[in-house]
């Protein structure tokens, strides 16, 4: 028996003994199955998005009328709208951008271009990474304890904008650092070579080259701010606001007014949260409609940022 096996009259080569062919085939089938599984599972992003959009559309499409955008909240679901919410969101994100962009970009530039390697820099770096992991509701507690009661800003647009600015600061800082780091050193050397100072090199050359990357990060950060709910719940954003903030322009001297910064406000996510927690299905349809608007806005911002990044990556060749 054993002797005939080793003689090569047998058609299968000797190395393929012990069911090797089947094992190899099984391994190949497993591999093919895994590739299929991989494609299916990786599509979970697209599938979830479809399910979300589908669910929101079927529940809320009928509510998306022009009046929905132009009405204040109301006790009657069919007359309620998101006017105060979208104006509030716009103002809050504006304040947020006004604070977070300069501070975040400056911090990123400092860490990448100016900071010396010492323990202070290490502390700041570790700290920025840690801040990115702090739960958003904790920023709400910070705002409640310091901004609302400590500084007396109250439950205002300014409080909300500042809170969200602190929340997205790590995002802006990290995006700035990565884009600034990607600018090749030869550009800095050329500028130094003709006698530019450090700030001239940074502001005339490094920042312009880094600006596409920075703006991508800023857009992602602002879309996060737009969709953020928990910290604003903490500072007491009201969900029943039947008036708009004071207009920034007045017809008498001094013509501009910053009163709106201190006005109470509501934002889109808060309005949606309020509607979704009511048992009445009519209000839940409102929530779906508000969610649809919110989702489209944030997805558009994120999608634009991703598209912009891919385009920049393929266009810029250092």
């Amino acid at each position: 028996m054993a002797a005939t096996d080793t003689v090569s009259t047998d058609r299968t080569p000797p190395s393929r003994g012990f069911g090797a062919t089947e094992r190899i085939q099984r391994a190949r089938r497993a591999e093919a199955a895994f590739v299929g599984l991989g494609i299916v599972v990786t599509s979970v992003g697209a599938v979830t998005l479809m399910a979300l959009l589908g669910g929101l559309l079927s529940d809320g499409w009928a509510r998306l009328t022009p009046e929905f955008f132009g009405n204040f909240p109301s006790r009657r679901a069919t007359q309620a709208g998101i006017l105060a919410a979208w104006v509030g969101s716009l103002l809050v994100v504006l304040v947020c951008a006004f604070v977070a962009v300069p501070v975040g970009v400056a911090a990123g530039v400092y860490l990448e271009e100016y900071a010396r390697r010492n323990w202070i820099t290490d502390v700041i770096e570790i700290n920025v990474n840690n801040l990115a992991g702090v739960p958003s509701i904790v920023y709400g507690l910070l705002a409640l304890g310091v901004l609302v009661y400590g500084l007396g800003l109250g439950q205002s647009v300014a409080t909300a904008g500042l809170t969200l600015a602190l929340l997205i600061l790590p995002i802006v800082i990290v995006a700035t650092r990565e884009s600034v780091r990607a600018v090749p050193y030869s550009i800095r050397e050329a500028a130094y070579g003709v006698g530019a100072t450090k700030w001239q090199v940074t502001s005339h050359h490094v920042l312009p080259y880094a600006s596409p990357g920075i703006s991508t990060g800023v857009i992602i950060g602002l879309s996060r701010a737009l969709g953020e709910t928990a910290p604003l719940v903490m500072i007491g954003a009201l969900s029943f606001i039947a008036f708009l903030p004071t207009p920034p322009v007045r017809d008498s001297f001094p013509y501009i007014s910053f009163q709106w910064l201190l006005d109470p406000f509501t934002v889109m996510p808060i309005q949606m949260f309020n509607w979704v927690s009511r048992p009445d299905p009519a209000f839940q349809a409102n929530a779906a409609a508000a969610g649809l608007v919110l989702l489209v806005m944030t997805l558009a911002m994120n999608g634009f940022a991703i598209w912009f990044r891919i385009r920049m990556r393929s266009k810029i060749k250092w």
Partner: protein
Amino acid sequence: MANLAQPATTRLNSPQAVARRRRQYMRERAIEALLFACAAVSVVVTLTIVLVLIRESLAFFSHVSIVEFLTSRTWTPLFSDAEYGILPLVLGTLLSSLVALLVALPLGMVIAIYLSEFAGARVRETLKPFLELLSGIPTVVYGYFALLIVTPLLQATILPNLPGFNVLSAGIVMGIMIIPYISSLSEDAMRAVPDSLRDGSLAMGATRLQTSIKVVVPAAFSGLAAAAVLAISRAVGETMIVAIAAGQQPNFTFNPTESAATITAYIAQVALGDLPHGSIAYQSIFAAGLTLMAMTLVFNLAAYWLRKRFREAY
């Protein structure tokens, strides 16, 4: 213009030039100081967070014993006979995060292995943006999804007795939310494994799947474990999904098909009511916030330690 005619040394040392360089130097220093101040803002923010949480928590613990806080199984701070045992909230938080992890870990790992070891550049560039978009969806929209789409779906199919508010659907949706964190961190970890290891395995006749599971995954283990822990930390701090879909009743339970409040849901619930500044209920949300911070800090430190401790050096 006129002084261009003079010899270079005179131009460089002329009083105007010296004054200009001096101004320029002062300006440079001022700008650097300003930039440093902006970078230091982040440290100030951290310190302020810790200070605020500790100050209000100390006020809270002057009314409530810390032993009761950490051991009692009842949390009813808004009742007249209030009891302050954080355990039900901690349990609710861990339970919902565990459900999320059970959803996100297998899916995230398969995605990471697929994207890092199998997918071509084209497939990756098409599917990855959709995954990234998942982490950009507002959490309040996810909350709606959990309460009004996932829960009814579960009730209609496999769990007819599921209550309207339950930890299960909140956890599942939270799991979907954290998939991008797990998959992208894991993919990074696996891509950092040098190709020589893969080549060695493939040369021995292993298939790509065998190579991935028996060579690449063990080699990237520290990064994968860190990704999982960071994702838990993310789920622990998530507020809106659980506040909307998991219910508001503190419930000492290990059963995800029941409703249970998490730490974050409690904080949001109290904030929604009109709470008087300085009351015990007001202080209790800071004590709860401190507990939450401590939990996420433990997870973040664990991730850091895992990455350091088990890092394979190539």
